[in-house]
Every structure is written in structure tokens, then in C-alpha cells.
């Protein structure tokens, strides 16, 4: 059985190809980390397997990044010279074949007599060279060294792209800082203003609530808080909204106490509640009911905000979540994007809505997620 399966691997030439591809695949994850000494060191072993030479070195303008092959005094001798050998190619970008009088160290036992130096090029720039040391140079070795260097160039370019992508993502994250909506600030201040003459004491209390709310929402420190703190802030928000809507705004809470210590990105519940207030109350004259639920789901907490207002067309919500419409539900899109950034794509917002059927927004938070800690 085993022998028969072996046959499927094909001719010796096929097998050689597979072996080469496999060796290359072993080297590539290290090269994808970029040309650091650690990564180059790990990759160089596999690269030498590919070339089958006595030793190889990877050098950049600062010196030898990695050496693999013969050790002992031979290594230290040649390692010292490697920078000089690499200099020409680093400048010109052309492959150099160096003979014994450039390379050999004088020790007759030394397996290193010649070297092929091939450039590693990314974005038109020579970033390093691959030096293949051997006993004597053949045309095949020159060709092989050039090909391997070209392949390494490709991998290093991918590493650059990866870094680029991470930078882009961090910039996006910075742009995705939690936001409070300008509408709310305007409306809250207007509502407070209306109490200044009729009920100065209440106006003062509301202003203090507003101050506390802003301190929480505009804080600089960490990005995370506990559900308990977030709910406390939702309460401040609702006190301010109640000043505006009075008895028309009814809120009920169903919170499992077990999930209060769960760490969540801050300002993720408040925008959902704000959204519910806007959809549930604005534009009508009746009473709006808002329900905030937090349930314990073993490894996760499930949080939902529901209103019984006008609801909306699912297509509009879909557009808002994918960031297409900048108008109505900008809060939803922001919360959704931040949740996905932190916990991965399976943890976005789930919105259930239809015209005249209210809206329910649900999301889940894992109780533990590596690297996520609340800051006071």
C-alpha cells in the first residue's frame, strides 16, 4: 500500500521539484518577517539546502545578516571578508562571480574557494545580497543563486507589503476612535438651556451630568472599559435625553449581573442607545420604549438594544454598516467597525429591523480576549 502510493509521486524529476518547493516553503514564512538578522538566520538554512553549497551568507550594507554552512575558523575568516565581497553588488545590483584570489583564505583544507554574489532587490533597490560559497563555480550555480536571490526578493517584497498593510490598519484604527455625535451635544445643550430659567436647579444637575458624560466620552487613556462603567455612562446619556423627551422615553433594563465585569471597547453601547432613541422617538409623538439587555452566554456576553419605533429598511442599515451612507446611522457603522477590529469578523453588529417593526441591534463580546484589558 505504502509502496504503491509512493509511485504516485512520479518521476525523479518530479520528486526533485517537490523537494525544492518544499524547501522553499520552509524558508518563506521567515522571509515574510522581513530581512531581520533573526529571520534571515532561520531562512538561510533552507536557502543553503536549495543551493547545496558549502556555505551561504546574506549581507546588507551594515554587514552579515546571516551565515549558514561550514563553521569554525573558516566561518570567522570568511564572515569577516563577506562585507567586502558584497560591496560591489550592493552598489551595482549586478551578480558577481568571484574567484579564488578574491575569496580563498589560504587554508588548503577550506571548502570555500569561490563565491557567487547575487542581489536581493525590492522596489528597484538593492536591499541585500545573497552570497553562495563553494569549491568551484559553475554556470549552473550562478544561475541557481540568481534564481534563489530573485525568489527571496519576492518574499521580502511581500514582507514590505505586509508591514504596509499593518500601518494602514493602524491608521484606520486611529481614525475609528470612538465618537460622540454632534447632534446629541447640540440637542442636550438646547434642552439644558430650556431649563435655565424655569428650573435652574435641574439645569445645574443636567450640566453636571453633561460634564461627566463628556469626561467619559472624550477621555484619552485606554480604549476599553467594563460593561458596568459603560452602562453608567448610558444612564447619564439617558438622563439628558429625558430632559428633552420627558415621559415619552421609557427605558427598561435586563442585565445579567454576571456580565457586568466584562471588558468592552468604550462607547459601544451608548451609540446604539442613541440610535434607538432617534429611531424610536424622533418624528413621532407617541411613547418610545427602549430595552437594553445583557445576557450571559458562557464564554461570551450578548448585549442588545431594542426600540419599538419606526424601524427602517434593511438596505439602509446595510449601507450604514458598510460605511456607504454617511448620513443617518454613522454611529452604527463606527461601532460595527470597531468591534470587528478588536475581536475579528465574527463579532460584528447584528441588526434586525423592518419598516414599522422597530429595531434590535445585538452584538457579542468574548469574556476574555488576549491583549484586551480595562483601564480605569
Amino acid at each position, binding site marked *: 500500500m505504502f509502496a504503491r502510493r509512493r509511485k504516485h509521486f512520479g518521476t525523479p524529476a518530479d520528486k526533485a521539484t517537490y523537494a525544492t518547493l518544499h524547501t522553499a516553503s520552509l524558508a518563506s514564512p521567515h522571509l515574510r518577517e522581513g530581512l531581520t538578522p533573526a529571520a534571515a538566520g532561520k531562512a538561510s538554512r533552507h536557502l543553503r539546502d536549495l543551493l547545496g553549497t558549502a556555505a551561504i551568507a546574506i549581507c546588507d550594507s551594515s554587514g552579515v545578516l546571516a551565515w549558514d554552512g561550514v563553521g569554525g575558523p573558516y566561518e570567522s575568516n570568511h564572515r569577516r571578508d563577506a562585507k567586502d565581497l558584497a560591496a560591489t553588488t550592493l552598489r551595482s545590483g549586478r551578480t558577481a562571480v568571484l574567484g579564488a584570489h578574491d575569496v580563498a583564505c589560504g587554508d588548503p583544507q577550506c571548502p570555500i574557494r569561490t563565491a557567487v554574489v547575487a542581489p536581493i532587490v525590492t522596489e528597484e533597490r538593492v536591499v541585500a545580497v545573497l552570497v553562495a560559497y563553494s569549491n568551484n563555480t559553475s554556470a549552473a550555480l550562478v544561475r541557481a543563486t540568481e534564481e534563489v536571490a530573485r525568489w527571496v526578493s519576492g518574499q521580502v517584497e511581500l514582507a514590505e507589503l505586509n508591514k504596509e498593510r499593518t500601518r494602514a490598519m493602524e491608521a484606520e484604527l486611529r481614525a475609528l476612535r470612538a465618537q460622540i455625535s454632534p447632534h446629541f451635544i447640540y440637542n442636550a445643550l438646547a434642552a439644558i438651556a430650556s431649563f435655565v430659567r424655569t428650573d435652574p436647579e435641574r439645569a445645574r444637575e443636567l450640566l453636571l451630568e453633561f460634564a461627566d458624560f463628556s469626561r467619559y466620552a472624550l477621555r484619552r487613556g485606554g480604549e476599553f472599559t467594563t460593561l458596568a462603567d459603560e452602562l453608567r455612562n448610558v444612564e447619564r446619556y439617558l438622563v439628558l435625553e429625558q430632559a428633552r423627551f420627558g415621559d415619552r422615553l421609557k427605558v427598561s433594563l435586563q442585565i445579567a449581573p454576571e456580565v457586568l*465585569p466584562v471588558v468592552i471597547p468604550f462607547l459601544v453601547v451608548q451609540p446604539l442607545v442613541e440610535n434607538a432613541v432617534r429611531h424610536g422617538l424622533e418624528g413621532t409623538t407617541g411613547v418610545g420604549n427602549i430595552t437594553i439587555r445583557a445576557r450571559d452566554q458562557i464564554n461570551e456576553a450578548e448585549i442588545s438594544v431594542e426600540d419599538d419605533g419606526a424601524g427602517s429598511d434593511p438596505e439602509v442599515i446595510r449601507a450604514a454598516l458598510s460605511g456607504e451612507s454617511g448620513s443617518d446611522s454613522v454611529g452604527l457603522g463606527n461601532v460595527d467597525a470597531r468591534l470587528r477590529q478588536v475581536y475579528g469578523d465574527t463579532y460584528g453588529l447584528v441588526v434586525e429591523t423592518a419598516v414599522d417593526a422597530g429595531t434590535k441591534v445585538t452584538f457579542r463580546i468574548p469574556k*476574555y480576549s488576549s491583549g484586551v484589558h480595562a483601564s480605569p
Partner: protein
Amino acid sequence: MSPAISLTAIGLVVVATIGIGLFGLRISRTTSDFYVASRAVSPRWNASAISGEYLSAASFLGVAGLVLVNGADMLWFSVGYTVGYLMLLVLVAAPLRRSGAYTLPDFAETRFESPVVRRICAGLVVGIGTLYLLPQLHGAGLAVQTVTGAPPQVGAMIVAVIVVINVAAGGMRSITFVQAFQYWLKLTALATPIFVILLVWHQPVGVLDSLHGAAAEWAEPLSRAGGRDHPLYATYSLLLALCFGTMGLPHVLVRFYTNPDGRAARRTTVVVLALLGLFYLFPPMYAVLGRTFAPDLVGTGGDTVVLELPGRVFPGTAGDLLGALVAAGAFAAFLSTSSGLTVAIAGVIDQDLLRSRLHRWTGGDYVAVNSFRIAALIAMIVPYLAFTVTGALSLADTVGLAFALAASTFCPLLVLGIWWRRMSTTGAAAGLVVGGIAASAAALVNVSGAPQGGWPRALVGQPAAWTMPLAFLTVIVVSKLTPDRIPAGTARSMVRLHTPEAVDVDRGPAPLTNRSTSAARPARHA
């Protein structure tokens, strides 16, 4: 004992458990008062819940049986079960809460930054949980057998099915108030018969007489009553396992997460100590009374003494009623501990072993809830099969092995991980593997038939005294040998673990760099 009354009582407990499980979520409190809604679970409630979940079949039935058969040495069981929380309080409670970990694998990951250590921990949680579920099923089998005469598989099956349905349907979860109620139910069920017996029956002198003379050896510490060799070694080993094993039990840590901060975690532990101390007063009383009223049970292993004693003292309706109360309490013990364990094990199976695979197999087309349900089924089927294969070990003995395994694996991980800065990732993994293999080898030998007599039996029967130091030594030696594998974030972790929440310190790097790794995750799938 009249089966009808007892069965009714057991049935009531079962119905109540399922009912609360299925409908409890719907009647969960609704309020429009933020102050009420965002109030954390108080240490007192949380402590009742921890005690309710912790007091298992081994505590309810096993301890009394062991004392009845093997004499005064076995009192250490009740001491050890309680003192475990003292160790938890002194060594790990507050730092563990501050770590933000929900499960033991979470702690391993946050402290050692290694998926390998995390996976080993996940495997151990499943192992310890299974070893701990085994005696719960065994106890349920015994209880049903004592009441009705049905074979032990019946009772075990009943508990297994109820727990799986309940957990999979989303009931019982971690509802703190349900588990807290269970503690008081168990305490009432165990204490009431004792008080009735002591009040109604006016010859306490007779009991003390029975402890002299022929039975003097029974009441004498380290007397080899019950035919155990090397009682001194066995006692110390047992104490080590119980004291240091509690912190590694999977269902205990999960509940500490409910505490809002490290200080609350400590206060909770203190209350737990008091509640457990109160509870463990009663099992030895059953044993002493059983020595007088049911001496024949000594030959049968004694695990049924709690269930049978009321009927022996009061033949007739009074005895039946008290017996039914005890049987109901015992069933509550099996159900609550099994549910807690199953939830904890299933959570780990789901998170660490099942979900990513399910995601791959179904191409992302699955519902998270289903993954958990499958995990719950697996978490119960394995111990049930193990129960049908293995014979009847004494209840508290199997639990002792689960504690020994926890003490030889998670105890070094937690204690050194929290208090020793130079612990390396390799050291952590090596300690878990060595301690785990040593303790589970002992457990396997025990379950499949312990060697007879002498040191081998003592060493295998109570392995903690050698497996736990072995694990500690492994961690220390390997960590010293691999100083380059000390996690890079050790200093940061230590600050987080040991600084009270109220103190404003830098708890780590800016969140942005923190999250860049996880932020890269979705993009890779896309």
C-alpha cells in the same frame, strides 16, 4: 426506606432544576433603574454560588462514608476541601481576578503568551473535569440504587441526561442566584435530619460509648482503620492534594470572574471559607451516628450512610420524610456540581478545540450556540462512558485523584506564574506535562485496579505528595535552563496581576499596538 416519597422529592428537585433552567432566563429581572441593574453580584451571593457548585456528591455522601469506614483520619477530607479556599485566598484569588482571565487556558495565554501552553491547559481542564464528573455520576447511581434498588447506571443516566439537556438548552448557565440557592438547599437537607435526630433521641452517651472499646481504633488518628497502609504519608498527601487542588478546578475560577475586582474576589473567598466550614460540620456527625445505628454499612463502603441513616433511626414516616429530604439534597448536589463542571468543560472544548474546526469544516456556516451544544454533549458522554467501564471506586477517592491532578498541574502554573518572574514558557509547559502525566498515570492505575498493599498502593492511591513537588521542580529547573523563553511581557503581566485596580498605573502599552495583531486577523481571512 419508602421509595415513593424519596422519588417524589428527587422528582421535585429535577423538575425545579429543569424549570429554572428553561424559564429562568425569561423571568430574569427587568428594571428601569440603572442603579439596580448595574449592581455587581455581592461577595456574599457569589460565595453562596461558589459553595453551591463546589459541594458535590463527594462532600454530600462521600465524606460521611469515608469517616464511617476508615475512621478519624478521613476528617482531613472535610478540612482539606475547606482549606483549599484558604490557599486560593492567600495565593491566587485577587491576582487571578485582575488577570481578566475567564478560564484557566485564558490565564495561561495571558501570562505566557503561548498557544501551546494554552492548548495543554485546555486538555487538562477536560481531564480534571472528567475525573471530577465521574464520582458525581457514581453518586447519582448510588442514590437511586439506595432509594429504589435500580442498578447504578439508571441514576447516572438520569443525571447525565438532565445536565446535558439543561446546559445545552441554555439553562443553569452561571445564574448566580440559582447556584446560591443550591447551597442553602444542600445545607438544609443535610443539617435538618441531624438536628431532628439529636433533638428527638436522648442518649448521646451511647454514641460516645460505641467509640470506646472495640471501636477505639476507629476513633484513633493514624490507626490504619479500614486497612490503609502508611496512614501518615497518605494523610499528608491527601492534604496537599486538597489544599492545592482547589485552585485548579475548572468550575471554581469561572465564578471568580463575576467579582468586579480583586478585592471582591478576596472577600468572596473569605465568605466561602465560612460557608464550607459550616457545611462540613455535618458529614462527620452522620458517620459517628452511622457507627452506632448502621454498623453493617461499614462493609459496603459506607457511601450510602447519609441516605440510610434517617430511616435507620426513625423507622416509619418520619424517617421516610427525612430520608426523602436527604435524597433530594444529594440530587441537588449531583445536578449543580455536574452542571457547573459541564458548563466549564464544554466552554473550554467549544473555545479551544471545537469552534475553529467547526468553522473550517462548515466553511463558517455554523451557529456559535450549536458548537457549544455539541461541546456540552461531548463533555458529558466521556465521563458517562468512563463510569460504565470503571467499577465503583469510593466517591471521595476519585475526587481525591481529580484534586491531585489539579494540584500537580494548575497549582504550579498559577502559584509560580503569579509569584515568580523568571518562569519561562518552556518551564510552564514542561511542568504541566510532567505533573499531568505523573498524576494521571496514578489515576489510571487506580481506576483500572490499584496494586495491593504496601508503598506502591499508598503512592498510587495518594499521589499528590510526590507528583506536586515533581511538577514544581520541573517548572523551576526547566525555567532556569531556558531563561531566553521568559515571556517578553512578564513585567507588564506582573504589574497587572499585583496592582490593586484603584491604583492608577500604566497597565501596558498603548491599546493601538496591542490590538494590531488581532486587527490583522480578519484581513487575513478576507
